[in-house]
């Protein structure tokens, strides 16, 4: 089988994960900018991180034959400090021309605060000014429903943004319809303890169809399973899905969305 991992924080993973992913049929990995698990102390920390995402990590992935792409932003978890966020947003354009940068992400909300909203609007404006695609993180647990609604309002308000060039990630049963009805793509994140299990993700695919949807593992430095996309493909097979329909969800759909960025090219298989 072949699949795309459209959301993996590979800088926090070990080389064994790269080997396992490639062995399982991974055709490329896309890495949104993320919180480090601690707050970076200045804009220089982001400069270094963006260099890691656009220079060092693609080289590390290439050692295992895996194309690596990334998205840039300051994560909503660090958005309470608006002044720092302004400095980071001002820094990002220097990196947008790098060959593996797909757009702005993962932006969004965490606790749904006023400052997080301000920083989200700054990122949406940045994407619009530079004609960039957007990848959005929605909040955790009890904050997800409200955060998803607020995010949709903010992005819809900016008429320069085409919804089909935006993916809103980490949807669950109570938010998937809001996102799809608004014309966006939706991502389902397969986590062992929160977000979505393989079984529930397949339920949602069966209930809502597989248009404008993708699956990801969102593997990072927390509890997560880098192979959860192929594991879910296996579960789809056990549930009677045919190979073509599985391929559409785990390969063709992310390929279709990501190919809207001209820099997204996969080597011929």
């Amino acid at each position, binding site marked *: 089988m072949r699949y795309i991992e459209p959301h993996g924080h590979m800088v926090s993973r070990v080389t064994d994960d790269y080997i396992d992913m490639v062995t399982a049929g991974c055709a490329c990995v896309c890495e949104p900018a993320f*919180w480090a698990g601690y707050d970076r102390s200045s804009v220089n920390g982001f400069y270094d991180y963006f260099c890691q995402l656009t220079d060092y990590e693609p080289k590390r992935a290439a050692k295992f034959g895996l194309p690596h792409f990334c998205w840039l932003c300051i994560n909503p*978890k660090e958005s*309470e400090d608006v002044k720092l966020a302004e400095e980071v947003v001002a820094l990002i354009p220097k990196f947008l021309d790098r060959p593996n940068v797909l757009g702005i992400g993962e932006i969004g909300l*965490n*606790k*749904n*605060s*006023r*400052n*997080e*909203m301000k920083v989200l609007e700054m990122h949406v404006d940045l994407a619009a000014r530079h004609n960039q695609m957007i990848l959005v993180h929605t*909040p*955790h*647990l*009890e*904050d*997800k*429903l*409200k955060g998803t*609604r*607020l995010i949709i309002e903010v992005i819809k308000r900016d008429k320069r943004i085409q919804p089909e060039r935006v993916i809103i990630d980490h949807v*669950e*049963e*109570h938010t998937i319809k809001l996102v799809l009805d608004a014309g966006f793509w939706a991502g389902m994140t397969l986590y062992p303890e929160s977000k979505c299990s393989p*079984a*529930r993700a397949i*339920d949602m695919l069966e209930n809502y169809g597989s248009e404008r949807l993708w699956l990801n593992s969102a593997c990072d430095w927390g509890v997560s399973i880098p192979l959860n996309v192929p594991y879910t493909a296996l579960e789809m097979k*056990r*549930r*009677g899905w045919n190979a073509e329909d599985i391929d559409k969800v785990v390969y063709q759909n992310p390929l279709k969305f990501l190919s809207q960025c001209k820099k997204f090219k996969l080597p011929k298989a």
Partner: protein
Amino acid sequence: MTRQQVLDLYFMDARFKLIELAAFLDRVDRAEGQADFRLDAFRQAVGELDGNKPERAKQVLLAFSDPTAEPIEKAPGKGAVGAWPGKGG
């Protein structure tokens, strides 16, 4: 899938999780001291499993969700606890 196929594939897993859930509630009962809003939300969510209502997973998620619409003044921290503490919580 037929209902038989769903049961074949998922019954043991669901049975296991249901017993875990029952044992969790027993454990909470046996423990001392005050519970908090999380247990109230949990009991409300468990109620969504009853009967033949559609979209149970969605209803359980809604039972744990912040239903308000306005952004909050300032993020109190970075984490989420899984249930909404209510206004002023």
